[in-house]
């Protein structure tokens, strides 16, 4: 696991790093933590290291704002995997921050209990995306990790899998796939769509916008159930 802390205040960085290392040691998780002090450093770092899992990002960096950096990660790099946790001395957040789909917000001075709670939720999210979906096509078995699948779509007898790296297809039934995949990772919104919660950009009552810009319809019969499942999943994420 790779965690990056990007903040111009050295004391915050050191304190965060210590708490993270302690937490990972207690949970016996191998983790690499790197500290950066500016947006430019972060940009250079990301060119060399693509596998960042968590980014603690100060909203007010001296050279660039956390909003711009977040937007660049989501839109230019099209990276939805990095869990961005914004840190700020303010409690008021601009709407533009929310468009970057941050994992959480922390207010300085950040308390150890708050960081631990965030890290626990991070581990939970990473845990459920570790498994893979397997299917057969022309007698060959393929495996795609759940964390790479945006959604399944059924077109007649064919199943289309929209992934981060492209589109795959095979012959199958969406009902069977829905029973196969975990309920807390995938959501049935329509008889033709089974979506991955973590690739949703925006929820609405009648349609869902995915991170790749596609708008998928939520069928009338599913709307109440979809709503219930979104809330249940959120409660589960908060350990409720």
């Amino acid at each position: 696991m790779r965690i990056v802390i990007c903040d111009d205040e050295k004391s915050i960085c050191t304190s965060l790093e210590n708490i993270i290392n302690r937490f990972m040691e207690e949970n016996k998780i191998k983790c690499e933590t790197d500290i950066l002090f500016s947006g430019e450093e972060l940009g250079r770092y990301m060119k060399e290291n693509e596998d960042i899992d968590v980014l603690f990002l100060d909203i007010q960096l001296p050279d660039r704002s956390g909003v711009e950096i977040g937007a660049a990660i989501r839109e230019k790099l099209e990276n939805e995997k990095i869990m961005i946790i914004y840190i700020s001395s303010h409690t008021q957040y601009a709407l533009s921050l929310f468009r970057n789909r941050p994992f959480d917000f922390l207010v300085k001075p950040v308390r150890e209990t708050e960081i631990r709670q965030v890290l626990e939720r991070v581990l939970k999210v990473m845990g459920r995306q570790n498994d893979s979906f397997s299917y057969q096509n022309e007698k060959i078995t393929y495996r795609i990790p759940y964390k790479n699948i945006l959604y399944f779509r059924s077109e007649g007898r064919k199943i289309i899998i929209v992934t981060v790296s492209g589109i795959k297809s095979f012959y199958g039934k969406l009902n069977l796939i829905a029973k196969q995949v975990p309920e807390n990772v995938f959501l049935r919104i329509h008889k033709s769509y089974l979506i991955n919660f973590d690739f949703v950009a925006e929820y609405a009552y009648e349609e869902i916008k995915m991170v790749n810009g596609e708008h998928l319809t939520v069928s009338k019969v599913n709307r109440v159930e979809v709503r219930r499942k979104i809330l249940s999943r959120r409660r589960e994420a908060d350990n409720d």
Partner: protein
Amino acid sequence: MIDIVVEAIAGFIAIPLSIKFLDIFLEKKRKSIWYQIGLCMIYFVVNFGLYLQFHSPVINVITNLAGLILLTTLFEGKISQKLVLISLKYGIVVGADSLCVYLIGNYRFGNAPAPLSGYLTDLVVMIVIIIIEQKYNKAKNKVFPVKYEIILLIIPVLSVLTITYLGYFWEEGGRAAILLSSAVLLLNCLSFYLYYALANLYATEIEKGTMERMIDAYKAQIQIVQESRENLKKLRHDLKHHLIELSAMARKEGAEDIDNYLKEMEKFLINPREFSASGNQEIDGVVNYLLGKAAGNLKNVSVNISIPEQYFQGDFYVCTILGNLLENAVREAEKSEEKYLALQMDMKRGVFYLKIENSYRNEKHSSFGNTEHGIGLESVKKMIQMKNGEIQIEKGRKRYKVFVFFYITK
């Protein structure tokens, strides 16, 4: 045979009229067309079948009311409200029916009425429904307390008893019967005026209560902002002095002293009455006002709010939902031994999420009991429904949790 067919058609027409009537006052649920047709068929078959079999006015009343209750399953709303509406509607039917059978011919109680009287009754009921819809088209989803509903129920109950008495004991019929039936019909029509007036009165009371609370919340928020401003002014004024003090401590290498001094300065800056500073005035006002009032009584309060600044400015529904739920949570937490309250509010991916957790004394927890401002469970649920939202409640042994979620449509 022809008479039976004529009566059957008249009886069947009455069913969509009942649905039309309920549609004026209640929100229709999303049910498939086949479900609705099935329900209407059951109502018709049972009602007409028992009428043909027994020709009993008492059985007629029971089957008609039972059928109307069945039709109310197509609509949202609390049970007591539905009972009042179907009773009022039945009062009109009874009045219209009585008027029509006496108008057409000499009717004797227990005998089959003239077949065409059914059509006349349907016509009268339809006219009444059209008038009610025109006059009270804003009556949908209006609610009021059970005590008012009980008062309203007296009218149709007395109407049914009067008409039944008329039928059983007054054999002559004639003009007197027509007049009395007309009076019953008119009285039941006027009862809707009363229904609407009561609903509006109650809505005005709730709005007034909400406005009063918002004003109190604004006052409290203004005070908090002023206090913070004063503290900041003082700190700025004394900054030079504080810097001198800190420099002296640094020269003496008193790191712990510096740390303690800085903590004192921080305490001075943070306003203990400011639990929320999200940049949404009404939300901050409501949270700070309610938690500020309870500050001395609660032992453990946690507030975590991550919503865009100014996003919910002027959002009446969010503030009313939050204010009502938080007020109840604070009240129950104050009564408990643990005195714990946690509020979490955020917005992610187009979804607003609110969680309120509180400790409570292990008695009946009225999370949605009527507050002093009079808003109950139904009003809060309706507001959440209007935003296509969802509310879930979890009651543990010592903790009570309420979860609210709705889509952000902006």
